[in-house]
């Protein structure tokens, strides 16, 4: 176990290094810089700025300096928001994103699994068909389309829910719905197909032959085995929700980290772009890692260490 974690950790560092390098050079490869949009800057001041931020040096030197800073835990200062450290921007805007993301994940799992289970139990009947049509829609329609549709119907037409902002429980509904729609659809389909497989498994017949009632069979024997693929999906789903929130926060005007990210990119705020990219990277790697660990607890057949059974 310890070896497994150490091993994983090493690979995380490697992927992080690749992520940082790729993002850094790609970002620099795009023409323009943070100060292009400010038109009336005299050349002298521009040069001073360049010098201050080190833009006058070759890119590889900037890169090495940045790497050195990051290793020391220094993510730099925003080039647009005066005197704000990147780490401050991230911690300051993380709270709403975290709340939104967590609620969306929980909602996605609960609703997705429930729909999947129901669809499997009513296999080839009306409920199953309706669920699966919705699921296909959910997977096919992008979240920003769902978001705007929801805004139009529930906020602008029906006035049931607020259109924008993030000031209380009511403000959660629309962004969470938009964010979790795709994962719900995906989880529902996953759960359904694996439930159907489990329902026809021999051990379910054994459970019936034991005289267990169907509720005991369903909860003790079917669902546990049926949701295993969902556990695998938790990692990619977190990625989906995190990246989805970049767009969703923008649409709903939520001042979360996703919105900061978009602002940073449109303003060419190099340190912030890098900082948030690294942050997202770490977040996703942790999600993946937790998924791997979670799998061991759900499925006793899986052991983390490779090689012989311990």
């Amino acid at each position, binding site marked *: 176990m310890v070896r497994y974690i150490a091993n994983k950790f090493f690979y995380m560092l490697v992927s992080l290094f690749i992520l940082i390098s790729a993002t850094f050079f790609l970002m620099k490869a795009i023409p323009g810089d943070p100060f292009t949009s400010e038109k009336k800057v005299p050349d002298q001041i521009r040069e001073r700025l360049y010098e201050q931020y080190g833009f006058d040096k070759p890119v590889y030197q900037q890169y090495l300096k940045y790497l050195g800073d990051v290793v020391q835990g220094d993510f730099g200062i925003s080039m647009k928001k005066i005197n704000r450290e990147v780490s401050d921007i991230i911690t300051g805007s993380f709270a709403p994103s975290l709340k939104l993301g967590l609620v969306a994940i929980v909602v996605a799992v609960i609703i997705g699994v429930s729909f999947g289970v129901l669809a499997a139990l009513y296999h080839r009947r009306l409920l199953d068909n309706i669920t699966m049509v919705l699921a296909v829609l959910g997977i096919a329609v992008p979240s920003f389309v769902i978001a705007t549709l929801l805004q139009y119907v529930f906020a602008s037409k029906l006035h049931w829910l607020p259109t924008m902002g993030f000031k209380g429980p009511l403000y959660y509904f629309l962004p969470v719905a938009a964010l979790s729609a795709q994962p719900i659809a995906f989880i529902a389909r996953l759960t359904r197909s694996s439930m159907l497989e489990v329902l026809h*498994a*021999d*051990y379910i*017949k*054994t*459970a*019936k*032959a*034991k*005289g*267990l*009632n169907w509720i*005991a069979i369903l909860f*003790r*024997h079917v669902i*546990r*085995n049926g949701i295993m693929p969902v556990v695998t999906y938790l990692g990619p789903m977190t990625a989906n929700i995190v990246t989805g929130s970049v767009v969703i926060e923008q649409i709903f005007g939520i001042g979360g980290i996703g919105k900061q990210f978009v602002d940073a990119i449109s303003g060419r705020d190099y340190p912030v772009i890098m900082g948030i990219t690294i942050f997202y990277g770490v977040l996703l790697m942790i999600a993946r890692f937790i998924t791997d660990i979670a799998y061991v607890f*759900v*499925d*006793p*057949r899986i052991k983390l260490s490779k090689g012989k059974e311990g």
Partner: protein
Amino acid sequence: MEPILQVKDLHVSFQVKGGEVKAVRGMNFEVGKGETVAIVGESGSGKSVTAQTIMRLIPSPPSIIRQGEILFQGQDMLKKTNKEMEAVRGKDIGMIFQDPMTSLNPTIKVGKQITEVLIKHQKMTAAQAKREGIEMLKLVGIKNAEARFNQYPHEFSGGMRQRVMIAIALACRPSLLIADEPTTALDVTIQAQIMDVMKEMQQRLGTSIILITHDLGVVAGMCDRVIVMYAGEVVETGTKWEIFKNPQHPYTKGLLRSMPRLDQKKGEPLIPIIGTPPDLIKPPIGCPFAARCEHAMKICEQIDPSATVFSDSHSARCWDLHPMAREGGQPS
């Protein structure tokens, strides 16, 4: 012998796209107390369907029980509600399935899969059930039962898993055990061990056993009586000795002939029964075996024969065995 189970004129069908598969077409048999009865026949002859119908385990739809009675300890199982059946399953009738590799839930500890049935039917506390569960594991010959109790099925071999299945099936001391091809998926050496465990448990607990198999060797080693099924019907029934020493029905004879023997010469081919069983969506009106039978006569294709009785226990359904056919002086 006092019968514990009586199956009377059982008809079971399955609804499929092309019509109705008449899988069981008028089964009649009895199982006495403490007796072991084998149901043999090839795949699709209705053995498993009969067994699962006794437990009411086949889902309906697509299955339909057209008619008949299944009297277990005097009660008609076909008239029971689902709830009432739950009280019978696992408690009064235990069941073992063909493939031990898939019959146990892979994500639940073996011990829990045994205690589950004890807690359900014997109203035991978790601690009592655990003690009893370990006891059952010892009884079926699992060494180091205390440690094994907390392991998962994937840590057991096939034979060990089948022992666990037997432990589960017999945990509540049922009066009837239905073993649906319990050794088909196992190695021959393990098969013998499993049969020994079943025999020993039977002697200890006095359980009646219905053994479904297509392995006549298993039948010879274990059973008192044999029921030979073909195309959803009983074609011959008798004690083990009557069937092996004095088979009457051409199908039974064919089955015995097609079995490899120890005294067989090297290279000598087995004698198969030529042909395939009839399509049970449109079962033949006459004897279902007629198309494959070398002694088939005109009447065989027109009227399904009734049983000819040879002794209290031995009877077979074949026109060639009919008293009137014998008068013609053509012994088969």
